[in-house]
């Protein structure tokens, strides 16, 4: 498999733009060509196995260990452990070895389990059956056994198992329909063509006689590009060579539609398919918090090293006097004496390291892992993110990124299936200004719209009636919709009448389907195309037949299509429908103003509008048209241009009938969600493979673009007129002018009210922008582009290939502010950007579960993103931020007294605390309260967070883990440590504090410091807790109680397995002394005082938004608080 990976890499980087760097020859059906033509060189290709797993059974242990020890922290603990094993250190190796072993094992088990799941998923894919033609028979095989050159039989609604060249289909014309929804997000049916010379090979036996080879380029990720050639050998003849293009290639992941079966030959398999190449390797994502944590870790490592170094140096300075180094009462052993001074110094240095190593606690990593793992359950448990329709709630695939959800700055969203429901619906039509809204329930009933324009004349006269029917007929006729019959037994008519199940419309454009279906609801049902006659069932249940004479197909330049039909009565009609901009200029009569007003109104609503017009043709005119088209079609040169001219000549002088409005229904609350995300300070980009007009309409509907948004276009259309350079500079000038005035006024806090910009860019232009310039100024366009983007509140990227989506994400991710990005999508085409972004979210959509599987989090609907980010993300972030800061804080408190103690014990590495305390401090005395805090803390209520998205800005840019705050915590820790140590020092200072005159020793000293320490750090957390449930009470008071009980027990017995009994009765003796109690109370108070004062002062003088809202809520809820308390007590009883 590694070989494959390398090969993939090579092929990915080597296949340049159009040129075939390398080609492969595929022998169809593995049959060698007739002798003499070409040497048969069987090439080796990978099998059709898809591998997404990371480990195999054999390499799991070494590879996993290697990866784990690549983490600085783990490696550091390993070193400490080894040092403890080798040299004589103040603490036993168990104190660090055991936790390390635990961490490594737990992580390995977790990762092993995850990989096992991946193996299972891979196996499921690899073992699903495919049909292969072998020796004229259909053979079932497992998917992963498929090889390049196999002929595959794919039936309707099956997904292609690998990349195939279409040989023949069940249709006579050698076409098939395919939906590539899971690849590029386009749900429409696309037509693919079989090779002309093989389309007659229609049965297994015939295919067995086919002798042909395919030469094609090595696999490359571009979905829309393919270059190849097929050589067909016939008896004794020269081989026929035919070019192959992307219209012949069926891609893995696409689904066969409306075609009974196809035969095709495999050319790219397994990890070489275009879909697999569009996957990005799963690299481990690290959250911003983890990065800060690592930075803090390095600071602490430096502190640790310098502490150890200072102590070592001081030790040797202090020991320069031999009577201090080795007084008569404390001699060294002979071997110690003989050791070289440098070795001694080095061992001392290491021993100091070990003594202070707790400042970087293993348990922090365990706690963080546990917090992430357990915390992520709150996402899966969330009832509000459960979707009844699909019966699933949110899924967490990687819990490593929980807190990153609270840091998102850029959101990249897919359109189809993510923002929209991915099904078109006919909303209304407008005939001469009368609005018709079909109603799903009362089928066919006309409901005049209640809005302004159509009230001009509400009762259409006889003339209006005629127009209305003509309009409906026009829509029933002017389309390329096919009727798909399913097992028609006795007539299509009944099937269509009875609605779904037996027959339905299909088309390459979902809009057309929506329109024809809409007409059905308004009473005119298109039945079928039979013998070149279109049949319509009208309102009176009569069948009308129109002869279809010409179809002037849709193209994106004209943006309209026309049909010429002859009615039953012999009249010739030309019906045309198209975008308003391409119809209105060609209209000579009709109620243009009313219709235009309605169209504009609908466009603002985000509906996709089309205008319909007609003209009556005389027979002569028709003949002229036929003539015109015929000559254009037969032209050998510039046929396209001539056709366009002909169309232009034909499609003019229309009479306007009306307009339609179709909606690609937005997902529930999509607009509200986007609005909230905007308010929370996030920038939302839409990346779609769809075409610009459609995408723009969706953007308007989802409030991404507002009516006031000024749209900047950076599209091929524009760059054709002007060169890219000028366009870019133009745009940036526009934007920057705005920006200049904006900075002046940002202080007033009204920046939202300013003119905002929306950018539209398409894939081709993006490639041009991203392409490195010849003259070396690579980043030039990129920088300008980024500058423009930064100043746009919303950006729409259309016509994007999957990898381009990832490129955009990458571009933003690595721009100079290094913002946190989030990508959300539902299809396989979104996988690459989901993997690229800091956080990838998959929608469990209709287009399969690929996105959900590859994402970090999967949610049922787009609207759930709001709660995911604003509530869960926010909570996770504040929780983990506190967790990290608190952990460092409590370990400074813990270790700094040890450091100070070295100055009073001759720098001898004497630990201040007993081994049990050293080991258990992080593991049990202070671990649970912070873990619980980091799981259930809510500084603000959930509902407020949801209601007020701007609170999200309070934590933006990793604000709780800034250096300033980190330093504050560290200094607080140092201050507390100094208080503990010197408090105890002055209490012990050459006096007794028992009432029986007996003295305490060094272990009592350490225990006193430790007791104050445990109480202080726990109470510090209690002061930080804003959400006291019964569990918090239980854990915080419980762990303090546990400390006391443990200490009583630990000192209460002579432990037979220990070789020292230094803690015997130390704790109890200490508690029997009154001044010790007073001292503990005093020191705890003094340690907590500065933090409380700081908090209260900051809240009173410079409150943040969060604090304001907290205070405000408190003011408003004074009366409710008593009720709160009551409910709390009652609930704690019930628990």
């Amino acid at each position, binding site marked *: 498999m590694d070989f494959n990976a390398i090969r993939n890499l090579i092929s990915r980087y080597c296949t340049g733009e159009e040129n075939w760097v390398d080609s492969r020859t595929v022998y169809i059906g593995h049959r060698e060509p007739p002798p003499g033509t070409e040497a048969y060189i069987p090439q080796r290709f990978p099998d059709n196995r898809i591998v997404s797993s990371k480990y195999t059974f054999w390499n799991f242990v070494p590879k996993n260990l290697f990866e784990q020890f690549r983490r600085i922290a783990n490696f550091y603990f390993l070193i400490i452990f080894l040092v403890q094993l080798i040299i004589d250190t103040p603490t036993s190796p168990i104190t660090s070895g055991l936790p390390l072993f635990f961490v490594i094992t737990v992580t390995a088990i977790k990762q092993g389990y995850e990989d096992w799941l991946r193996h299972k998923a891979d196996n499921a894919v690899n073992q699903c059956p495919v049909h292969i033609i072998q020796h004229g028979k259909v053979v079932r095989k497992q998917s992963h056994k498929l090889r390049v050159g196999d002929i595959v039989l794919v039936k309707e609604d099956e997904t292609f198992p690998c990349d195939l060249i279409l040989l023949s289909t069940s249709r006579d014309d050698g076409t098939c329909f395919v939906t590539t929804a899971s690849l590029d997000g386009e749900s429409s049916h696309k037509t693919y063509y079989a090779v002309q010379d093989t389309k007659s090979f229609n049965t297994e036996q015939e295919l067995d006689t086919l002798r042909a080879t395919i030469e094609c380029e090595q696999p490359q990720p571009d979905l829309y590009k393919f270059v190849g050639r097929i050589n067909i050998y016939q008896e004794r003849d020269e081989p026929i060579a035919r070019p192959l293009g992307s219209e012949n290639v069926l891609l893995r992941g696409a689904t066969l539609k409306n075609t009974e079966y196809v035969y095709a030959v495999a050319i790219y398999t397994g990890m070489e398919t275009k879909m697999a190449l569009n996957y990005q390797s799963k690299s481990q994502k690290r959250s911003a918090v983890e990065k800060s944590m690592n930075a803090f870790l390095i600071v602490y490592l430096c502190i640790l090293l310098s502490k150890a170094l200072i102590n070592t140096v001081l030790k040797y300075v202090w020991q320069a006097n031999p009577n201090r180094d080795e007084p008569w009462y404390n001699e060294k052993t002979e071997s110690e004496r003989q050791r070289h001074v440098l070795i001694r110094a080095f061992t001392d240095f290491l021993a100091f390291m070990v003594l202070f190593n707790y400042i970087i606690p293993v348990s922090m990593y365990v706690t963080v892992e546990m917090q992430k793992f357990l915390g992520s359950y709150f996402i899966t448990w969330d009832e509000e993110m459960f979707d009844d329709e699909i019966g699933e709630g949110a899924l967490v695939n990687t819990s490593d990124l929980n807190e990153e959800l609270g840091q998102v700055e850029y959101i990249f969203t897919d359109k189809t299936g993510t923002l929209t429901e991915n099904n078109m619906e006919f909303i209304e039509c407008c005939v001469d200004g009368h609005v018709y809204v079909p109603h799903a329930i009362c089928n066919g009933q006309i409901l005049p719209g209640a809005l302004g324009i159509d009230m001009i004349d509400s009762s259409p006269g006889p003339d209006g009636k005629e127009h209305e029917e003509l309009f409906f007929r026009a829509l029933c006729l002017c389309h390329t919709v096919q009727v798909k019959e399913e097992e028609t037994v006795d007539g299509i008519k009944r099937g269509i009448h009875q609605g779904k199940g037996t027959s339905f419309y299909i088309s390459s454009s979902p809009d057309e389907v929506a329109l024809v279906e809409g007409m059905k609801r308004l009473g005119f049902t298109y039945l079928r195309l039979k013998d070149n006659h279109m049949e319509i069932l009208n309102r009176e249940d009569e069948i009308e037949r129109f002869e279809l004479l010409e179809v002037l197909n849709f193209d994106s330049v004209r943006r309209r299509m026309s049909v010429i039909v002859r009615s039953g009565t012999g009249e010739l009609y030309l019906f045309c429908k198209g975008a308003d901009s391409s119809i209105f200029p060609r209209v000579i009569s009709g109620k243009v103003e009313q219709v235009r007003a309605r169209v504009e109104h609908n466009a603002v609503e985000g509906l996709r509008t089309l205008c319909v017009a007609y003209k009556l043709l005389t027979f002569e005119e028709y003949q002229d048209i036929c003539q015109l088209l015929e000559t254009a079609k037969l032209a050998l040169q510039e046929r396209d241009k001539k056709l366009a001219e002909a169309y232009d000549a034909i499609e003019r002088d229309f009479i306007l009938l009306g307009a339609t409005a179709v909606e690609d229904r937005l997902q529930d609350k999509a607009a509200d969600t986007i609005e909230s995300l905007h308010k929370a300070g996030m920038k939302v980009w839409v990346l779609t493979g769809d075409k610009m007009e459609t995408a723009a309409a969706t953007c308007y509907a989802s409030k991404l673009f507002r009516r006031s948004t000024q749209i900047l276009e950076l599209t091929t259309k524009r760059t054709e007129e002007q060169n890219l350079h000028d366009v870019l500079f133009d745009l940036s000038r526009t934007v920057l002018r705005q920006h200049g005035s904006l900075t002046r006024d940002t202080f007033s806090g009204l920046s939202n009210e300013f003119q905002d910009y929306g950018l539209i860019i398409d894939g081709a232009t993006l490639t041009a922008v991203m392409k490195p310039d010849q003259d070396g100024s690579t980043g030039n366009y990129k920088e300008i582009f980024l500058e423009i983007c930064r100043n746009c509140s919303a950006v729409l990227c259309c016509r994007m290939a999957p990898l381009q989506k990832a490129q955009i994400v990458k571009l933003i991710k690595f721009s100079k502010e290094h913002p946190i990005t989030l990508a959300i999508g539902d299809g396989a085409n979104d996988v690459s950007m989901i993997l690229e972004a800091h956080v990838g979210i998959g929608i469990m959509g209709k287009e399969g579960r690929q996105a959900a599987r590859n994402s970090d989090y999967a949610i049922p609907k787009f609207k759930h993103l709001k709660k995911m980010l604003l509530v869960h993300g926010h909570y996770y972030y504040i929780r983990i931020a506190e967790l990290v800061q608190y952990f460092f804080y409590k370990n400074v408190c813990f270790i700094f007294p040890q450091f100070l103690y070295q100055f009073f014990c001759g720098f001898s590495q004497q630990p201040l605390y007993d081994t049990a305390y050293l080991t258990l401090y992080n593991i049990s005395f202070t671990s649970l309260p912070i873990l619980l805090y980091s799981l259930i803390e809510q500084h603000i209520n959930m509902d407020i967070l949801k209601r007020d998205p701007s609170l999200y800005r309070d934590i933006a840019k990793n604000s709780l883990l800034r250096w300033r705050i980190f330093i504050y915590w560290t200094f607080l820790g140092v201050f507390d440590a100094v208080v503990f140590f010197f408090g105890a020092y002055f209490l012990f200072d050459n006096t007794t504090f028992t009432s029986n005159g007996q003295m305490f020793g060094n272990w009592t000293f350490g225990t006193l410091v430790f007791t104050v320490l445990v109480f202080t750090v726990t109470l510090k957390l209690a002061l930080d807790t804003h959400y006291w449930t019964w569990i918090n009470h239980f854990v915080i008071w419980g762990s303090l109680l546990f400390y006391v009980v443990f200490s009583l027990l630990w000192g209460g017995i002579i432990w037979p397995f220990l070789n020292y009994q230094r803690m015997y*009765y130390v704790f109890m003796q200490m508690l029997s002394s009154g001044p010790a109690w007073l001292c503990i109370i005093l020191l705890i108070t003094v340690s907590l005082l500065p933090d409380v004062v700081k908090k209260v002062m900051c809240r009173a003088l410079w409150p943040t938004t969060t604090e304001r809202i907290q205070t405000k809520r408190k003011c408003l809820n004074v009366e409710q608080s008593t009720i709160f*308390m009551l409910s709390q007590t009652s609930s704690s009883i019930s628990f």
Partner: protein
Amino acid sequence: VMASGYSAKEEDGHHSGALGPAGGAAVRSRKPDNTAFKQQRLPAWQPILTAGTVLPAFFIIGLLFIPIGIGLYVTSNNIRELQIDYTGTESSSPCFACSQNYSWNMTTPCVCSVSFSLDQPFESNVFMYYGLSNFYQNHRRYVKSRDDSQLNGNLNSLKEPSKECEPYRTNDGKPIAPCGAIANSLFNDTLALYYNDPNGTETQIQLVKRGIAWWTDKHVKFRNPVGDDSNLTAIFQGTAKPVNWQKPVYELDSDPENNGFINEDLIVWMRTAALPTFRKLYRIIEKNSSTSPTLPRGNYTLKITYNYPVRSFEGRKRMILSTISWMGGKNPFLGIAYITVGSICFFLGVVLLIIHHKYGSRSSSADLTH
């Protein structure tokens, strides 16, 4: 305005529609439980530290701490304490001679006496301490150089002391009992106190040597090894005395309850001090009659059998006489600290009160307009 109204209506329609078709039993079962914990809606008390809430706490702390501090300070001041440094490094010192010519294997002990007078009588029990300075009992090599199981009477450890005792583990091939640096350096000055009656007679003051060690140490942690023979000498047969000791461990005291490992002087010494300057309880002078003070005002003589060398590491030796209250010996630290902290809290309370009045109303009104 129209647009937003429209979309709102649309959303409502969708919402109710979406809820409609669902509801099969199979679907329901996957739905997360609606428990308060899982939905993060546990009832909770949500306190916020504001100037208003913290104010009373500050005043209460202030009002509590200041009286406690005054009480502690007064108690500490009422304690009588007397320290006498008898190191003898200065030539004027009576112990100068003893401190100069010192060797471990001296046959005749060097005795010196220091005179002092008490201006005020010491009421109630008086505790006599010896104090050492610059003596690192908390040095790591020193602290761990002991064998607790030997001291607990384990016969195996008696014959085979722990490795930690090196280099004080064996002597001439015989295990040392008690082994280790701590035991080896047992403080062996003998202090005796004489009261010089104004009429010229010198009466020795009764010094009690029981009750100076922790009860638990004496009775549980430290035990003499028990053999076939009840005679300590026999049990310790085959062991060597610590190098610096003049007598073996079984001859420390004539009283069998205070001999061997359970000798209280040994036990006190074995509890290593926290800091390099420390004192250890040496003897107790018990109050005899309820009428006369334990140590009346007058002149006293301290007679020292000077054995313990401290000159090499620049140490000092002291004898301390102290009375004890409920809060122990003389230590003004706690009292002063309590008064200081109490005052600071009170002061902060006042500052917060001002802030609360000045800014508290402002910020809340700003909120309302916001």
